[in-house]
């Protein structure tokens, strides 16, 4: 069987804030035997528009993504949230839209990174994990968990790579990011991320890992404001053996 042609949806947050999550994703997918390409014309999955009630913008961006990723066997993103959005494209376009069938086809072949590795490829042997010292705790991003059923896959990969996990209480409770929610209702969002930070601290882990950069930026941002020395890593960075971003900078 020829190598799977995988289109990587980098996601706008990874593109802008933490490119190394994208490179780590490529390394993981290639190690798992995929032929990975990154279409240049991708911008954003359209979720900010869709969740703000702006269907027109969401449709325009959905069509852009559908075109950019035509011809791949699978579309993979290091994000449950963005893949959750791609899975909604049929609803975004609506049944009467001439491209509805294309949206359905894309929704059927797009996957969150860890679930693609584990569920679709049966990939287990991780690269040398880079988790710093001590065990990590894992935060379940809402879309990945409740829309895509991503829960065991990242934990399986971390365990295979020899990374210990101390589960936090309330791992499945939202961190308060919520896209535009965090700037529209800062008091509520701030209180939610404080609860998340408290859960992370109670776990005893020195590193928090998740599969979505939205959650991670939110958590990292609050930890930085509070001056707490807990490291914040994307699961792809840990599994792909990529050094911590802060260390890279210094």
């Amino acid at each position, binding site marked *: 069987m020829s190598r799977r042609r995988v289109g990587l949806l*980098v996601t*706008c947050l*990874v*593109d*802008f*804030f*933490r*490119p190394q999550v*994208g*490179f780590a994703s490529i390394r993981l997918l290639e190690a798992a035997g995929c032929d990975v390409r*990154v279409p*240049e*014309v*991708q*911008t*954003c999955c359209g979720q*900010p*528009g869709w*969740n*703000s*009630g*702006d*269907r027109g*913008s969401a449709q*325009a*961006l959905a069509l*852009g993504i559908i075109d950019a990723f035509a011809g791949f066997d699978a579309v993979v993103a290091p994000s449950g949230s963005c893949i959750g959005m791609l899975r909604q494209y049929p609803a975004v376009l609506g049944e009467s839209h001439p491209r509805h069938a294309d949206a359905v086809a894309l929704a059927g072949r797009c996957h969150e990174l860890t679930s693609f590795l584990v569920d679709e490829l049966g990939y287990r042997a991780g690269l040398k994990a880079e988790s710093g010292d001590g065990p990590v705790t894992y935060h379940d991003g*809402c*879309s990945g968990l*409740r*829309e895509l059923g991503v829960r065991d896959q990242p934990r399986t990969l971390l365990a295979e790579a020899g990374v210990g996990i101390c589960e936090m209480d309330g791992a*499945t*409770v*939202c961190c*308060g*990011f*919520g*896209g*535009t*929610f*965090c*700037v*529209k*209702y*800062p*008091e*509520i969002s*701030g209180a*939610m*991320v404080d609860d998340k930070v408290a859960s992370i601290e109670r776990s005893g882990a020195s590193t928090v890992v998740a599969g979505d950069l939205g959650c991670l*930026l*939110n958590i*990292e*941002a609050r930890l*930085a*404001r509070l001056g707490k020395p807990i490291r914040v890593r994307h699961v792809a960075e840990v599994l792909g053996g990529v050094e911590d*971003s*802060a260390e*890279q*900078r210094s």
Partner: protein
Amino acid sequence: MSLDTSSRTFPQQVRVARTDANLQQALGKLKFGLTAMRGAAVAKLPEFEQLRHDAAAIRDHTLNHLDHYLLRFEAAVKAHGGHVHFAPDAAAANAIILEICRSVDARKVTKGKSMVTEEIELNAHLEAHGITCLETDLGEYIVQLRKERPSHIVAPAIHVLKEQVAETFAAHHGAAPPGGRGEAAALMAEARSVIRRHFLEADVGITGANFAIAETGTTVIVTNEGNGDLTQSLPKVHIAVTGIEKIVPTLEDASTLIRLLSRSATGQEASVYNTFSTGPRRPEDPDGPEAFHVVLVDNGRSRMLGSVFQDMLRCIRCGACLNHCPVYGQVGGQAYGSVYPGPMGAVLTPSLAGIEAAGHLPNASTFCGACEAVCPVRIPLPKLMRHWREREFDAGLSPRGARFGLALWSFAARRPRLYRLVSRVGASVLALIGGRRGYLAKLPLGRGWTAWRDLPAPAGETFQAAYRRRRRTGAD
């Protein structure tokens, strides 16, 4: 519109809620109480998911044939000697209930817990016409004494600490009873002794109805205190007030829904009292009311039928979505400014009060999906909240700043070349400002973020730029 709210000032109410130490202490208990009890009850029932599926199907079938089942219900109630009144809106419902009270010269009414009577503000209407209304559910009684609105659809006084209840009772009942006011049980006993004599004095008893069964003309209340039973059996007249969507076709259907309701609401396998009322007292009955009225309130519900919001009418008011909502858990029910708070209220309140009045509620959600995951009738609550956001956006009601930001983002994101340029410049500028520490403490136009958080600075080069560069140079 059909529901009075103070939801427009949600952000101010959030600030009040976040700085209310008593409220925050009360909410802290919620997080580990009701959710844990529900979880344990669900874990013990292997067919719970099948029940959810069946319950949603029962509710959908009923709503798709609501006219038929409403007429069947009416005929069955009449056949048992009761009366059914259809109230198109709150004013009509209040007028009907007042008229029934006047027909028996009622001076005092006792009430079982009923969210629909909260929705139509029945107490204020009756009091304005010289009729005393007494709430007999403990939580409702506390809230009534404190002149507040319920903060939770199942546990109306969940925002009140027992120390505050003691203060409220001291202000209204005078000297403490022999048992004191230190323990919850003592407070409950005190309330019971005060309320009990009112049952005997009341001319009319008003309850809600969790379900109204079409085949038998029966109303059902599911309670834990027994106050509802005394309310509906001791006075001469029983009025059950409920929404038109509470109809279920058969007794069997009602029992399926009750199995889900108690577990979802309080984690009980069955609530303490599941009381079925069919018609007034018959000659051979030892007790019961002389007259039995059912007031079926529309108040905006029929507008939801056949719309994208119809699924919301499946709701059986268990409150599980409130208990599991991280937003509700931070601010409590009263911040929402509606008798229907939390995720179910974020969909139902704009349906009844209009999106102009309640726009904040469907926006104040991260779409985390915890509500939908626990809903016993599988209402897609985040999807319905998104529909409200879409209505709001289409009507031009979203805040101007948000619309402007969205328009800018959309303009750039639709143009990949422009988008790459803007993000490339933005990432390097922010990386520069972030400096060695790698964080920005202040952002122009970014107060919503930086009031609580620093901004992790980007690496400096976007992924797309780095990826193209590496491919050109053959690195990596």
